[in-house]
Every structure is written in C-alpha cells, then in structure tokens.
C-alpha cells in the first residue's frame, strides 16, 4: 500500500456507528492524503454512505476517532465540520426541489461570511456550468437528473471546501453523463481539492482514483493503489464483474 502523498488530511480510526440496534460501521480505518482522490467501493449495504455521513457529522460516532487536519471532528456538528472544510455531496443528489437553482447554490455557501467572494464564486460556478446559469431562476426540482447532479456538485463547491465527499455521483445517470461527472470530479481534484468518493461504478471510479478502499459489512477489507485494485482477483470477481 502506498503512503498518501503529503500528510493525511483525513484520518478515520476504528470508527463504529449504528442506526439504533443496526450496526453500520464496525471499526473502520481509512486515510485520505492532501490532494488525493480516494475511492471507496463495496456492495450495497456495506456502509459506504454511513461512512460519509459519519465524517460529515450526520451519523454520530459510537466509538473511534475522525481527525481532519489533525483535529478531532467526530463529536462536532455538521455545521462545524463544514466550516472546518469538508463538504458532502450526498447520495441521490438531494437538491432542494422547491428552491431555485440560485438559492440552492446560495445554500451551499450558507456558512460563509465573505459575501463578495460568494457572489464571485456564484458567477464562476455559473460560467463553469452554463446549464445552471440558464436555469438560475428555475426550481431545482424541475431539472433533469444530470442537471441536478451538476447542481449538487456546484453547491458543494460553493462552500470552498478542502475536502469533498461524493456519494455515488454517477448513480442513475446516462452513460455519457457518467463520463462527464467523472471528468468534473477529476477536474475538481486537479484544481487542488481533495476528494473522497463512494461509487458503485467501481471500474470508472478506480480508473480515476489514486487509491481505493474496499468495504464489506462496516469495515475495510482491502486497500491499495487504484491500479492494483483493478487487477486484484477478489475485486475483479466481486465488483468488476469478471
């Protein structure tokens, strides 16, 4: 296993979390280095979404630690974690359907106080995603699935995060849009934002990632450079269909 480039930006240690009596995470360990693109793959119900929800403070940690930039965040509120620099682009896009596209983007910048820079970022995002500029005054619920995914990504960027968590960004998108979405995420990383991505499209995700983790029933069972995982027999059989 290669060491992460730079120091670890995110470190999850022995993390346990549950929904009432249902254990979702059972001693999870992972790290994400500064500037890396790391992907987390695993079957349905393995605990990938729960991992991201625990990192961003929506799912309380029962045991274990989460360190961001060396500081513990496992007891912090979602707002504090976002302020620390972690944005979360949730599974199923979850745009606010009855807010306009612009209001959704403004929600992304909710914790920011620098109003001028927010206004600039709004323009920049609209230039970057022209489809959003066109639909600025439209309710987000009227957008197509692909447009909603662009909006969800753009909304996460509006927080100016240092780390973005993506949960199944390609889910339910047409193949050409899957490609576009992956390109956007690769581009975000090229611009210096660290990415932790959960994907069911394991092949697409591993091809673009630096490193990968394989998750089963609430813990990591395999980790390594993405290229090595693509060639791994177990991964090929279980997640790559052959």
């Amino acid at each position, binding site marked *: 296993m290669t060491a992460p480039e730079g120091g670890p930006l995110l470190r999850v240690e022995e993390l346990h979390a549950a929904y009432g009596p249902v254990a979702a995470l059972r001693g999870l360990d992972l790290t994400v280095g500064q500037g890396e693109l790391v992907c987390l793959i695993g079957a349905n119900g393995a605990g990938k979404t729960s991992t991201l929800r625990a990192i961003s403070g929506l799912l309380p940690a029962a045991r274990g630690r989460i360190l961001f930039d060396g500081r513990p965040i496992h007891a912090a509120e979602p707002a504090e974690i976002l302020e620390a620099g972690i944005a979360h682009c949730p599974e199923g896009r979850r745009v*606010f359907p009855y807010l306009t596209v612009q209001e959704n983007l403004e929600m992304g910048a909710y914790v920011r106080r620098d109003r001028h820079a927010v206004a600039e970022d709004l323009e920049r995002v609209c230039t970057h995603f022209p489809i959003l500029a066109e639909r600025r005054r439209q309710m987000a619920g009227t957008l197509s699935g692909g447009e909603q995914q662009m909006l969800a990504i753009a909304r996460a960027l509006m927080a100016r995060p240092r780390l973005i968590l993506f949960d199944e960004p390609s889910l339910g998108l047409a193949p050409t849009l899957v490609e576009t979405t992956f390109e956007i995420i690769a581009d975000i990383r090229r611009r210096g934002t660290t990415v932790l991505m959960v994907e069911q499209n394991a092949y697409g995700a591993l091809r673009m990632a630096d490193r990968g983790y394989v998750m089963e029933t609430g813990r990591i069972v395999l980790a390594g450079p993405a290229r090595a995982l693509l060639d791994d027999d177990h991964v090929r059989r279980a997640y790559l269909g052959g």
Partner: protein
Amino acid sequence: MEQLLQHLVNGLVLGGTYALLGIGLTLIFGLMNVVNFAHGEFYTLGAYAAFAALALGGVDFVVAVLAAIGAGALLGALCERVLLRPLRAESIDTTMLVMIGVWIAMQNGELLVWGGVAKSIPHPFPTAPLVLGPVSIAPLRVFVLVLAAGLIAASYLLIHRTKLGRAMRATFQDRDTAALMGVRISRIHTATFAFGSALAAAAGALLGPVFLAYPSMGDLAALKAFCVVILGGLGNLPGATLGGLLLGIAEELGAGYVSSGYRDAVGFVIIILVLLLRPSGLFAREERIG
C-alpha cells in the same frame, strides 16, 4: 349588494388577523411537526401586552403592537428552547401533550396576572366610522387591516427574501441536506417558533382592541388558526393567507345572512366540508413552506 360590500370589508379585517394566526401555526406545524395547542395563548399574550403598553405605558398603538410582537417572540423562543428542544426526537404526540400543558399553564397565568374580568383595550382612534359610499368602517379596523397586511407582507419577505427564510425552506424540504449545508437545525426551530408566536401575538394585539381581552380569548382563536391551517394546507403560506381571509369573510357572511349566533359555527362547517372533500387543503401544492 351594499350589505354584501360591508360584510366583505368586515370579513377582510377579521380575515387579515386570522391569516396572521394561521401563518404562524402553519409554519410551526409544517417545519417542526409540532401541533401547537398553545398557539391561542400567544394570541392572548399579545392582547394583554398591548393592553399593558397602551393602558399602563401610554405608548403609541404601533409601539404597542411591536411590544406584543416582541413579547410573543421572546416567550416563543423560550418555550422552544426549554420545552421543545429536549423533545426533538420524541413523537408528535409527546410534543402535543406538552403544548396542551403550556396552553393550560399560560391561560391560568393570565388569569392570575390580569384577573378574569374582560378588559377593554384603549386605542387612540375616533369611534365615528369612516363612510366610503355604501361601506362604513371604524378607523381602528382600517388600522388593523393595514397593519395585518403589512405583517403578512413582512412574513413573505422573511421567508422568501432572507437568508434565514431560505434556510427555513431548505430545512423543511430536506432536513439532513440542510444540515450538510451548515444550517443549525435547532436554531431554525427556535426562530420558527418565535416567529410563529410573534405573529399570533400580533393578531391578538390587533384584534384585542376591536373586541375585549380576557384569559380564555385564545381558545377560539386557536381553533380558528387550526381551521385556517386545514383550509390552506400544512406549511403553505399563501394557503394560510387565503384561508384566513376566506374564513373571516365566511364568518361575516354567515353572521350577516344566517344569524349572528352562527358566526363561529360557519368556520367549522367549512372545515368539515374541506376535510371531507379536499383533505389536503383548498390550495394543496407539493411545496409547503413558502
């Protein structure tokens, strides 16, 4: 025809304050999932706050209404922080019982402080009605209507044009995702309850001088607020506004053309019809808060 116009005008005056009551209740209900049985007590609180400010403080009427709004917001915020916040994870039944307790406690508190005798709230307006063609209307009622309209407009601005309002709508639509955007959901709850209670208090301060202030005045007001919410649909601001106006007008027409004794019954007949025929409200849309 002339009578009809007169009834419509009177109905609008009542309806404007019903709309305030309804908007407050529908926001609390829609966003917090709390059935606020104490809503009428904030109405009573507003009437007594206006009484205190006008009769004892000798201030301007507008200042008295503002004082009532402040008192409603403050007590509403306190109520949410102390009683509702610890019960966030509990079922709607639990909070409903707690709010019934608040209702009883507040009403008895009012009885203790102000006594059971109805108080007439002094107001600075001349009693001679303004006559506009076929319609005559007391200056106080004009003032009530104008101020109610202003407060309704202010509520819309707050919900649709401010950052807090945007966060309230986002929270209503998708609580978890709003939290991911950094919205502190507990604060939204406190703000919503304070805001809803302030609107109820404003309605009490406006209607108090039209009628009288007495400790149980909030009971009927709360029932009417529930009517408005049912008419308008849960969490639906335009619905509550239209529902309030409709209820006020229907009451006036019922009182005028059927019998004044049936005034309060009219609203409930409408509610029963709505619940039977259109249980999601007259103006059901998918969107609610906003």
